[in-house]
């Protein structure tokens, strides 16, 4: 990875004074950076720092308002992704553009700009899989693959075009630590062969482990360029966030309270068409504690949440107990009336109705515990007052309770949804991905609310893919993998490697065996 860099070799990619505005926002302002051949260059920044916009400009998805792009020393225009690929720029997106019901090879064929003969393509793909020792079966349908395997499809798709610059957008956000290691090995090999890599992330330890240099963005501007191997993690974090790091305030150390939620032997088939089965999930959540459930996306988190919320019923009433009462066969409304509140990951369309006003969205889940609709008739006044109180108490930025849910930013809508549930003072709150896609300020506020709720004697269960978040919030942590839940462990006793191994579980081990054979 440490390529010898000579001064007379022009940079593979050089950006000079790039600016880009959208109505109301300056997404990029006067950004300059350069990436040498074979260099792994990090683009570091928080959500909303302007990384995505910059990358879209390089990949031709959007056009810069000002500034120039140079490719191997000469200025170029990149009007479309196709033009970018023609230059030799490949990109692996954070959200893959894959077709679940189609095979790996069909997906790869779809990603190519020119038609390639089927047999010819097969042998090319086989060659790439061989030379980078990537385990992947070209004839499998995509919905049967793990997230790591899906990412490999995108990487193979890029490598087929023999790129000179590979852009990786938050590639590790959905991978287990073991899968991350494998990805890094692949990326190092690609770079060693002379291809430059632009690596977008906000995860500092990864950047330290992988990258040769880093450009740090904040609020659309470059705030620093540094060598991540030399710079301290803390310093980079402060550059990225622009302030001293803030700690969540936990109250005084808590005594373990009474068991409020007890799940035992909960099994449920996955949601069709491509869901994960829950297999004998058991855990307890006690008053005053926050239980974290870690795991890579798609391992049964969605199923666990809908099983707890009552959207899908358990096989037996005893599978789920709320304050000692068996509720496994109660529906969502009955469980909420008894004090079990859930907040699913997907805000628009699951936790809230995008085309309803905030007031109407209050009715969705609060009508069981609050007198919003006595005798089946909705009380406009009560609904309006409840929504106003949530908006006020949880600092939701909006034009009023008549605003449509979908007109709110992700963070503000999440604050409203959390407020709607917490405002009902639930006995147990189960929340999935509480700060997904939420800006830093709102995320901190939401985490504080969870801590405060637990401190008041509720049991809180947080399902998240963000390990850092869980380590910060949770008292005890367990891991969900392929529908199975590990035994909870006190967070204080856990190392990050150990959690990584738990997350990889059987799945990760199997893959390593497979790789050894390959």
């Amino acid at each position: 990875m440490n390529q010898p860099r000579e001064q007379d070799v022009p940079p593979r990619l050089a950006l000079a004074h790039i600016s880009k505005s959208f109505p109301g926002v300056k997404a990029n302002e006067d950004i300059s950076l350069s990436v040498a051949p074979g260099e792994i260059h990090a683009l570091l920044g928080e959500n909303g720092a302007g990384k995505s916009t910059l990358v879209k400009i390089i990949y031709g998805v959007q056009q810069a308002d000002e500034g120039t792009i140079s490719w191997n020393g000469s200025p170029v225009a990149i009007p479309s992704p196709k033009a970018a690929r023609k230059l030799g720029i490949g990109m692996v997106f954070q959200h893959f553009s894959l077709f679940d019901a189609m095979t790996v090879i069909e997906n790869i064929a779809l990603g190519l700009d020119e038609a390639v003969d089927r047999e010819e393509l097969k042998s090319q793909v086989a060659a790439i899989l061989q030379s980078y020792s990537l385990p992947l079966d070209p004839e499998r349908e995509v919905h049967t693959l793990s997230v790591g395997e899906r990412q490999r499809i995108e990487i193979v798709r890029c490598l087929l075009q023999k790129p000179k610059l590979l852009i990786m957008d938050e590639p590790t956000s959905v991978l287990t630590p073991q899968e991350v290691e494998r990805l890094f090995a692949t990326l190092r090999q690609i770079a060693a062969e002379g291809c430059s890599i632009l690596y977008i992330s906000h995860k500092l330890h990864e950047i330290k482990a992988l990258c040769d240099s880093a450009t740090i963005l904040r609020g659309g501007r470059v705030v620093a360029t540094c060598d991540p191997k030399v710079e301290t993690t803390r310093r980079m974090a402060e550059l990225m966030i622009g302030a001293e790091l803030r700690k969540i305030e936990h109250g005084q150390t808590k005594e373990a309270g009474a068991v409020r939620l007890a799940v035992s032997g909960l099994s449920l088939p996955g949601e069709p068409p491509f869901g994960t089965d829950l297999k004998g999930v058991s855990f307890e959540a006690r008053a005053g504690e926050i239980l974290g459930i870690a795991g890579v996306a798609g391992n049964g988190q969605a199923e666990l949440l809908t099983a707890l919320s009552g959207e899908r019923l358990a096989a037996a009433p005893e599978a789920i107990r709320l304050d000692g009462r068996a509720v496994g066969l109660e529906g969502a409304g009955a469980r909420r009336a008894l004090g079990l509140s859930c907040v699913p990951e997907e805000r628009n369309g699951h936790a809230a109705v995008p085309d309803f006003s905030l007031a109407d969205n209050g009715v969705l889940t609060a009508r069981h515990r609050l007198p919003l609709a006595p005798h089946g008739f909705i009380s406009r006044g009560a609904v309006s007052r409840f929504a106003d109180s949530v908006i006020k108490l949880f600092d939701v930025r909006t034009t009023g309770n008549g605003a449509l849910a979908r007109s709110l930013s992700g963070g503000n809508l999440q604050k409203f949804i959390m407020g709607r549930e917490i405002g009902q003072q639930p006995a147990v709150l189960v929340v999935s991905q509480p700060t997904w896609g939420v800006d830093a300020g709102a995320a901190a506020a939401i985490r504080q609310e969870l801590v405060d709720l637990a401190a008041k004697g509720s049991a809180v269960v947080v399902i998240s893919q963000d390990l850092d978040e869980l380590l910060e919030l949770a008292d005890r942590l367990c891991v969900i993998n392929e529908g199975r839940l590990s035994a909870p462990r006190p967070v204080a006793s856990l190392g990050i490697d150990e959690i990584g191994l738990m997350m990889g579980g059987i799945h990760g081990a199997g893959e390593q065996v497979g790789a050894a054979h390959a």
Partner: protein
Amino acid sequence: MTTAMLVSIIMTLIAASTPLLLASLGELVAEKSGVLNLGVEGMMLCGAVAGFAVAFSSGSMALGLLAAILAGVAAAMVFAVLALSLTANQVATGLALTIFGIGASSLIGAGFVGRTVQRLGPIFPAALSEHPVLRIVFGQDVVVYLSLALVAGVSYFLRRTRAGLILRAVGENDASAHAIGYPVVAIRYAAVAFGGALAGLGGAYFSLALTPMWAERLTAGRGWIALALVVFSAWKPGRLLLGAYLFGAVMTLELQAKAAGVSWLAPEVLAMAPYLATIAVLTMMSLGRKTGRLDAPACLGKPFTAS
């Protein structure tokens, strides 16, 4: 039953199946691209009346068929502009297209009611096409052979060609297809146009080959049965062929029973048969599947906007 009767029944069966096969094959391609066009009945009627009017006026079958195809495409384009460009609700737009087709065909056809044209004839020489048995194979008209060739062609197109791959991809995940850079809306326009062409041709088969005369609403709900056939086929052209011929058989049975004057069964009950069979088939399809998903394209019926 004599051989002659059997041959005649098979000839009727093939004729009754052909318009269903054409219309449902076109709809299959449209649905594979993710578009649910409920206006098949309307497009068939447009094709039926245009084909009849042009064939009657010009005396040319070829011009009639061509006009039917163009009328079907034109009707399909009205749907496409509304449902694809303006992202109107596809169910409502398809219904509107059917109501429109009924009205437009009655209006245009008002002057042709009861008129007849020379029936669309076989393409092989009489020695073959009038052979007592071989006429099953050689006694068909051009549209029958075309419909069978189209089944093979569409099957090959969807499974083996890059364009077919892209069309399926658009139906499976429009957002991803758009992200990769495929023109989702344009591809869907093409698929809908193809569906319209075949529906138009299928409609003309009623007015130029089956009856061959003009009567109001002469397709009698076959467009809706074609829609059900696509579900029955699990979006596979080969099974569609089977389904269309199965329904052709049901309708032939109805005609035969009527002709034979089966007295214990009221003609109205016989007339219900194809519609009851459709419901039965849809129900059996659902009973037969294992998971919660038929093999429908994942984006079927969902509006797409690039942004």
